[in-house]
């Protein structure tokens, strides 16, 4: 029986930002979404969707449109540039100005060779996508008013744009613009066309500020159908691959599916668009929709939650916003926690209780409260991207625009002040990086933008590169974790390879490949075995010394646990307890999951255990019943969103949690329908 004291941390002041736009690439099953702070999240949707990496934004960032093009990601925003993002280095590799200033929208031609951008100034700029980047092609004739949304016809000859009071159809071959006016000429209030689309049969689709979705005959420039789908602005639409359905949503957060039907009338068969399924899965404005080839709808908006919905069967999966990777770092030996905010980091020493024992779920009196040891501010206008604290909390490091900042922290002596000293002398060999990890005190692993992993030693006021570890060419680091001594480093890369480096010995081993992407990895502090958890909820245990899966894994972890398979959120972190080597501590966004190796599965007494909020026995982990030995899986549900769950020194674990109501409190008011009329 393992007993722990949970440090419930709910003071991490994390405010998720609204989702602005999104783009889905079917070929790689990746979803890119941007948030209001200019950051771009890449979600891997191959199996269960999970946030794979974050391209951090800064104060000048603005992402109004995103486009995938053969695995390359382009964005545009109010800064007036077309950017290409390098997902390996997390840097912007290309910055091309767009004629017309602030850019509201982007679209890609079907052959994926051309990009078009719609701008504030009324210009549509067309670029050729080449291997080296993008090349300016031409600008279409300037039109009055901003271009809010743009779509490219599958033939590549037409572009449709949405502006205030009109939808325009641009013939690229003829250089002609057809203006489709919206609303009556005597109408005083303007109609804003927020989103447009074009079907293969040249039917234009537009969503506007009146809450209407209009279907246009492109040749005549007239509305053929108009459906009042929403009570307020329709902000976004997405067309299904079969072109028989259109999903629309907006300020009125219901996602409405419009389906094309044929009805028999006196004039013969007439094509109509009718309202189909409605999905009320958001509480606030829906700003972005993305439809996959399998008709799955990703949606997001002001409520900050990414939602996946599809029908049939009726499935809705909600993925709450997570803080960027590397925002929370635990100093296990010092029982401290480093929390990252955009402009500063905070080091907190955890509290303690004099009482021990008691039932699971009981709260202990706090005899020694948490203490904020340090608040370290960056320079003005600098945005901190990643932070890490060493196990004894003597060293703090963070990244600002890829640059490494290292500080030596001296805890306060009795009654004294803490001291922080910056390591100013950085070896020239140290490259810009996107991820850091303290291996031990004064020893740091840094994932450089060039793709290598640099081991950096810090002594006094100097940091030098000790050695460089390399992955397979073309691979870039997604996650790093090390053992307690800092001698073994496990690296998950973007090609879904898990490489184990013996830092001292210079050896490396690669885990056998798995079909689903890896979501979390951990190294056992005693046995040095590597535990990897995948998006299909498989758990694998690998012995790097013998370069094979452990006997336990081969026996009991052949298939994902049915209890875990039920969940749509992936395992985010793996940690261990040296005092209980048989335990594997995992967590997803709503629960702790504890795997107890060598425990008989599904014993009756455990099912009745009142101490757990919910204990579910993983009886199907391998063939545990035949062997007489197995693994018990305990799922401990938490009332709040779990951001981090990790073991700290002694019999303690730390759980950083976020109350969803706290997030809701910071959101603006949703659309309200007035109950009575009047002025």
């Amino acid at each position: 029986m393992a007993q722990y004291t949970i440090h419930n941390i709910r003071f991490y002041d994390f405010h998720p930002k609204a989702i602005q736009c999104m783009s889905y690439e079917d070929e790689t099953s990746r979803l890119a979404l941007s948030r209001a702070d200019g950051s771009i999240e890449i979600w891997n949707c191959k199996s269960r969707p999970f946030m794979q990496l974050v391209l951090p934004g800064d104060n000048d960032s603005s992402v109004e449109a995103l486009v995938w093009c053969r695995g390359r990601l382009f964005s545009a925003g109010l800064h007036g540039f077309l950017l290409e993002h390098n997902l390996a280095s997390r840097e912007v590799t290309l910055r091309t100005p767009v004629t017309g200033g602030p850019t509201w929208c982007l679209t890609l031609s079907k052959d994926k060779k051309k990009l078009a951008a719609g701008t504030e100034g009324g210009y549509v700029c067309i670029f050729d996508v080449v291997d080296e980047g993008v090349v300016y092609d031409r600008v279409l004739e300037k039109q009055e008013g901003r271009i809010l949304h743009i779509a490219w016809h599958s033939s590549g000859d037409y572009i449709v744009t949405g502006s205030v009071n009109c939808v325009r159809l641009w013939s690229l071959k003829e250089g002609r613009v057809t203006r489709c006016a919206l609303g009556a000429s005597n109408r005083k209030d303007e109609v804003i066309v927020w989103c447009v689309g074009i079907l293969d049969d040249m039917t234009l689709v537009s969503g506007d500020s009146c809450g209407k979705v209009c279907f246009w005959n492109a040749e005549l420039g007239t509305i053929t159908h108009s459906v009042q789908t929403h009570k307020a602005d329709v902000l976004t639409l997405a067309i299904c691959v079969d072109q028989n359905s259109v999903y629309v949503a907006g300020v009125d957060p219901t996602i409405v599916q419009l389906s094309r039907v044929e009805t028999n009338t006196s004039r013969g068969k007439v094509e109509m668009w009718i309202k189909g399924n409605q999905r009320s899965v958001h509480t606030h404005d829906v700003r972005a929709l993305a439809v996959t080839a399998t008709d799955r709808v990703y949606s997001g908006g002001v409520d900050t939650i990414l939602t996946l919905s599809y029908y049939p069967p009726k499935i809705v999966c909600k993925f709450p916003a997570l803080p960027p990777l590397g925002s929370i770092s635990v100093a296990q030996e010092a029982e401290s926690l480093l929390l990252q905010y955009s402009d500063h980091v905070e080091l907190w020493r955890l509290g303690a209780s004099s009482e021990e024992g008691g039932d699971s779920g009981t709260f202990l009196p706090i005899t020694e409260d948490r203490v904020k040891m340090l608040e370290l501010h960056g320079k003005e206008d600098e945005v901190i991207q990643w932070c890490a604290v060493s196990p004894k909390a003597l060293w703090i490091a963070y990244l600002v625009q890829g640059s490494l900042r290292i500080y030596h922290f001296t805890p306060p002596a009795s009654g004294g002040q803490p001291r922080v000293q910056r390591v100013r002398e950085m070896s020239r060999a140290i490259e810009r990086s996107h991820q850091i990890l303290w291996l031990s005190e004064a020893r740091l692993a840094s994932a450089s933008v060039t793709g290598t992993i640099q081991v950096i030693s810090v002594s006094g006021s100097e940091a030098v590169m000790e050695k460089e570890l390399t992955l397979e060419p073309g691979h870039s680091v997604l996650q790093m974790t090390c053992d307690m001594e800092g001698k073994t480093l496990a690296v998950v890369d973007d090609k879904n390879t898990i490489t184990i480096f013996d830092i001292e010995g210079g050896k490396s081993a690669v885990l056998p490949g798995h079909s689903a992407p890896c979501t979390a990895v951990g190294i056992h502090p005693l046995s040095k075995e590597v535990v990897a958890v995948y998006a299909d909820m498989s758990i694998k245990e690998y012995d790097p010394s013998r370069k094979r899966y452990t006997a336990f894994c081969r026996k009991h972890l052949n298939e994902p646990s049915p209890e875990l398979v039920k969940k749509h959120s992936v395992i985010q972190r793996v940690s261990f307890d040296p005092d209980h080597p048989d335990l594997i501590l995992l967590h997803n966004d709503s629960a702790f999951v504890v795997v107890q190796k060598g425990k008989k599965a599904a014993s009756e007494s455990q099912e009745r255990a009142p101490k757990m909020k919910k204990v579910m026995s993983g009886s199907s982990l391998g063939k545990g019943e035949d062997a007489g030995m197995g693994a018990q899986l305990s799922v401990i549900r938490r009332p709040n969103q779990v951001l981090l769950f990790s073991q700290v020194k002694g019999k303690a674990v730390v759980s950083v949690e976020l109350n969803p109501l706290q997030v809701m409190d910071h959101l603006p008011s949703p659309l309200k329908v007035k109950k009575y009329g009047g002025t």
Partner: protein
Amino acid sequence: MAATKAALHKTSVLFGGFSPKNLLGVCEDEDGHILVSFRSFVKRFNIADRQQVRNWTTKSWHPFTCAAVYQREEKRVVAAVSGSVLAMWSLEHEDLDSSKRSSFETPIHTLLPSGNSVFVVFTTGHVERLSETLLASRKSPRPGFLSTGETITYVEIVKEAGLLVMLVEKEGKSPSLYRLPLGDSVCQPQDSHILALNDAHLTGFCATSSAKLVTLWSTGEMYIFEFQNDYLEKLPGRLHATEQQVTVTKPTKILELSPSHVVIVGQDKEDEGGLIVLRDIKFALVTSIQPLKMYHRPPPAWVTPSGLIVVEGSSLALIPFTVRESNLATVFGSRIAETKGFPFEECHSWVRTDGHQETQETIPKEAKETIYSNKSAELMKVIGSTDRGALSESMIAVEVIIHLIELKRLNLLREAMNVFVDIPETSMVDVLTCYLGCQNADFEGLCQTPYMQMEFIPQEEDGDKIVCPFQAAKAFFINGVLKRPFTDVQLLAALPKMCFDHALSLIKYLHFLIASGEVELTPQDKGTPSLSQTALWLSLLLDTNYHQLVMSSEVAIHRLLLSCFTQVSAMIKFLEGMSDIELLARRIVKGQPLSKHTHTSAPYSLERLVIT
């Protein structure tokens, strides 16, 4: 409004488990008891407690062939057995085999009770009073006017006209209506006529006690023929209405509930089940509809003074009803309809059993009230003096209030606001405008006013002192209007006619009421409106005067609005604080165990985790 309208009430089941085909008929014997006749037995029920009192069973080779009736003058039950035998027995009689029997040559079609006597209708069309039948020779045949192949499908006594109406059908021909004089022995009709309508067949038929013939045709058209005014040649009479609810192509049963109301029992047009439609034949309106589980062909339904008896599913059910003579107010809606009491008829005899205590259903208070009820003599005089062309209370109230405003009779206005129940929102706004236009002194001494706090000093950070814009007497009068119930959309339409200055005064006053806590969630006898009413008034006033309030450059107005916002926000915060207690208190009240996670909202806590 509903209380003055004719209506069908809740159905109650008498008994079940029989085949509706074997049901012959239902007849009331004495007050509160009914006789239900089947082919093999007759049951007697007490309607009050829905209990069976007695059951008489006949031998299977002597089945009942027509429904048993009660002969009041002899206090006995009479039924026809084996077609041509009359069986008679008293209510206390137990063994039917020993009942008195009389055999006749001519088969008996129906027994019709009328007042104290019973009429025997033979299949030949001959009709005799029972007493005469028993006196006359039983062996002699009863020749009638009907020829072979003609069958009686309906026979009813129209007592008011001293008639007996008989509908006779012959295969392949339209039905004929025969009118017979009501006498001791009648074998020839007065006159007869074919009852037919172009392109339609007869699906429902009823001769009412008020000498009217109501017919329903397969086209849905409903005709009424008046025996006393029209010749039979004019059949089927004048077109009355078109039936929309029941399937008119299938047989229906029309029953008279009162001179002004009939029910049509038929198949639901929307559904496969049955439907009872209560129709007001005076105004040609449907006043009540009640669905039935099944439709039987023809619909088994009978009317007794205790209620309507129908077959609901495979059970016999009683549906009590209330029918009162309609007038414009009951049809179009008004609480108090007339200045004088009006005669009404309703089924008064059915009583409800609540536990062991029997309670007579009381006549609704509203039904007894007139427009002069609960009014002072002075106000009654004003009501009397108004040119009251309208029938409804709201119309009278409008007239009276306009008159009182013209006379500036503030005290009478206050009384009118208290005693009239149905006052339109526009009149409420008129009264408020009148009050707001009057000086404080005009209200002094008119009546006793309860104590009211006239100023409110908030905490320092919450703003300045808030003073009631009116004196206590004026505030009391205004409260009388504010506390009246209203419909928001109606009030919103009426409020624009109040000028901005008055609206602003009222906003100030409502703001004071909310801030000072003078209004309560459920007001006591202080005469103040409730908090929700006050908030709704304020909200509607702000809505109506939105533009003026926003465009105003007056600092005082902005301060007032700001103060409104501050006070309301403070109250919301205060009440939100209570929500935490509510959860805990609810658990304690329900005796539920308290959650161990009472501290989960704390920013930092230590918790035990035991993994077994």
